[in-house]
């Protein structure tokens, strides 16, 4: 097989793997569901046109030359897409280093590693761009329908942004390896991915709260101050926005620049990819030192279980990054809360649903890790404890962890508005219990490392968890503003929960 043929073959192999991974994610690993997944995806994309229209529809008539405010808003949206893609790409690269089972096979083969890893880098770029293209369809569709075919150029911008994000992600991850070593890179990269993904939106919200006393990020982008600081219309900063508006010359320049960037990254980093992967593997073999020798602790059997769960949660890099992201999302409402001390704004009611929703989401993740993600299931099952005691101890861990994260916020809220604090605390508890119950009804035996695929084990559980989180958040907000509507919203959410229980697999 010639070198070129071998590379083409490997590229096909990578694409096939990426396609099957994506399909497994969509179908929950059940091949018979492919048709249902495609139909579901089409329906989802169709529904997504509504929020897309609400968010972006008003910009469809924007034309070149751009006024400063439109340029800022469009560029910010493109930058937000870049941040999200960069976050996803960092996660993909980390996974290639730490979790792909084929590195040993590839590295022990006679293939030229630099070439093989160049293809793997290109595959990451393609996957990230492909996913971004799919997600951008409703938004670009709305712009095309409302503003004309010129907006089709936005797809080109998405590709350019995706390719650049993949290039940056590879440079950042390998840079981290060199700087802090493989032991810390996994955790730091995941935290970085979380911060990058959420950071831009949160920063805009913080700026909006501090400057205009509102949670709306558009307040900053459309302000005179932002326009005052913005560069002139011919600045390179507006190229992505101009390209999205249909400026073909600028679009070609953008695409060329992004491909060139990826080429440079491939040339510099592909030869180091093998070395980096080998170091990551060596780190896994070497293991990490735990705490030094200390005395075994006294306690009940349930306490032993709870201690183990807390220890494992504290050592879980995914959970660390997710918790950090949830906490980051809570920074703007916390700041809003602090600002409201001085001007008793009624808008403070908005922070309750944010807190309730964050609690629901975090509880779902924690509950999966403690209930389904039991690495030594046989050991726990053969221990002299009733299954009820085991489950109770695990639920307690979830509720204690949620309490530890959210109590400071609720306590701060209690100083400003005791009633709102009580409502918030109640719905945090309800949201956490709902999410935990759903995980309990749909529990499947899995390894903790399979967390990324937890959503694929049951689509119903995933949607139920999301809808009940949203439902309880809305009910909490309504309880503070329109109590009668809260009864309806609460009843609907409880009905969702009851239906989920009814549809859940029978437990022995």
């Amino acid at each position, binding site marked *: 097989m010639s070198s070129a043929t071998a590379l083409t073959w490997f590229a096909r192999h990578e694409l096939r793997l990426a396609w099957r991974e994506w399909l497994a994610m969509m179908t929950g690993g059940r091949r018979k569901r492919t048709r249902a997944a495609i139909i579901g995806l089409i329906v989802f994309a169709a529904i997504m046109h509504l929020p897309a229209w609400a968010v972006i529809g008003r910009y469809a008539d924007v034309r070149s030359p751009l006024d400063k405010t439109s340029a800022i808003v469009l560029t910010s949206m493109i930058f937000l897409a870049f941040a999200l893609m960069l976050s996803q790409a960092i996660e993909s690269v980390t996974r290639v280093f730490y979790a792909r089972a084929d590195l040993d096979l590839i590295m022990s083969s006679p293939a030229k590693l630099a070439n093989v890893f160049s293809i793997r880098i290109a595959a990451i770029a393609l996957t990230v761009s492909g996913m971004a293209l799919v997600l951008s369809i409703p938004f670009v569709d709305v712009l095309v329908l409302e503003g004309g075919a010129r907006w089709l150029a936005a797809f080109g911008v998405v590709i350019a942004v995706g390719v650049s994000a993949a290039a940056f992600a590879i440079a950042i991850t390998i840079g981290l390896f060199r700087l802090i070593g493989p032991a810390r890179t996994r955790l730091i990269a995941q935290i970085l991915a979380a911060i990058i993904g959420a950071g831009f939106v949160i920063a805009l919200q913080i700026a909006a709260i501090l400057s205009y006393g509102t949670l709306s990020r558009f307040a900053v982008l459309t302000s005179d101050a932002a326009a005052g600081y913005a560069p002139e219309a011919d600045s390179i900063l507006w190229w992505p926005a101009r390209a999205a508006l249909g400026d073909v010359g600028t679009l070609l320049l953008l695409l060329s620049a992004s491909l060139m960037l990826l080429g440079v990254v491939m040339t510099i980093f592909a030869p180091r990819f093998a070395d980096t992967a080998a170091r990551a593997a060596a780190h896994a073999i070497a293991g990490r030192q735990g705490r030094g020798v200390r005395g075994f602790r006294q306690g009940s059997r349930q306490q032993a279980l709870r201690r183990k769960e807390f220890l494992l949660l504290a050592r879980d890099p995914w959970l660390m990054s997710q918790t950090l992201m949830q906490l980051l999302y809570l920074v703007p409402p916390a700041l809003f809360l602090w600002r409201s001390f001085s001007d008793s704004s009624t808008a403070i009611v908005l922070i309750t649903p944010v807190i309730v929703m964050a609690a629901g989401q975090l509880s779902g993740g924690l509950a999966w890790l403690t209930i389904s993600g039991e690495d030594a299931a046989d050991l726990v099952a053969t221990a002299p404890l*009733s299954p009820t005691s085991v489950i109770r101890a695990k639920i307690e861990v979830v509720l204690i962890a949620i309490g530890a994260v959210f109590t400071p916020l609720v306590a701060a809220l209690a100083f400003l508005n005791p009633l709102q604090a009580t409502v918030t605390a109640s719905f945090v508890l309800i949201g956490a219990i709902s999410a935990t119950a759903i995980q309990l009804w749909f529990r499947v035996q899995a390894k903790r490392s399979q967390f990324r695929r937890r959503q694929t084990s049951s689509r119903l559980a995933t949607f139920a968890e999301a809808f009940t989180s949203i439902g309880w958040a809305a009910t909490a907000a309504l309880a503070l503003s329109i109590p009668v509507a809260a009864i309806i919203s609460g009843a609907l959410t409880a009905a969702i929960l009851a239906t989920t229980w009814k549809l859940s697999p029978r437990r022995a």
Partner: protein
Amino acid sequence: MKSEGSALRLRGLTKRFDRLAVDALDLTVRTGEFYALVGPNGAGKTTTLRMVAGLLKPDAGSVAILGIDALVEPVAAKQVMAWISDEPMIYDKLTPLEYLEFVGGLWGIEPEASQASAHELLASLGLGPHLNERCEGFSKGMRQKVALAGALVHDPRLIILDEPLTGLDAVSARHVKGLLSERVRAGCTVIMTTHILEVAERMADRIGVIAAGRLVAEGTLTELRQQNGHTDTSLEDLFIALVDVKAEAA
């Protein structure tokens, strides 16, 4: 040290998946005995032991562990028993010491006792230098040793092992065999499935041959030879003869 009481007593134990996996199995293992359960792949060995350990619910039959009805009083039965599977399931993010502390806690052992026992067990299995290393970097053999130490730390009276020597090197396998023999000498009962017939031949007081979910032969090596009319045959030849006969009968 042998006593006449039974450590394990199975009567009419039955389990069906797509096909009949365990077929009304009767089996008695005496206290203080080293019992090896051998049989071809899919014979029902692991299914039988998983039902004994409380990991699978039988469709019919009874399980008594040291006189305790395991289906009626599962917690009491689990208190005196340990189970180790061929695929060691431990926590990657815990160190061997932390793992053993957790197991000791689950079985309600006094911390002083489990700590002393943990150090001794881990050292005897050659894990002394790795006491405070997280298990994520351990080889399969090392993980198997950690799981074994976990099973022994609460001093069980019945130890059930499913292929415990899989993945162990010769030195480690000898360590494990030594440790199990020591426990049997101290009065503990060991029931083990194995594909390594030489181990069963050398270590077991009695051997049970299981095929198609039924016990087709049982006894000491000498008794098995006599039952089959051979006086100077290896267990391997006996095993093949017994399993072939069962296959023909089926």
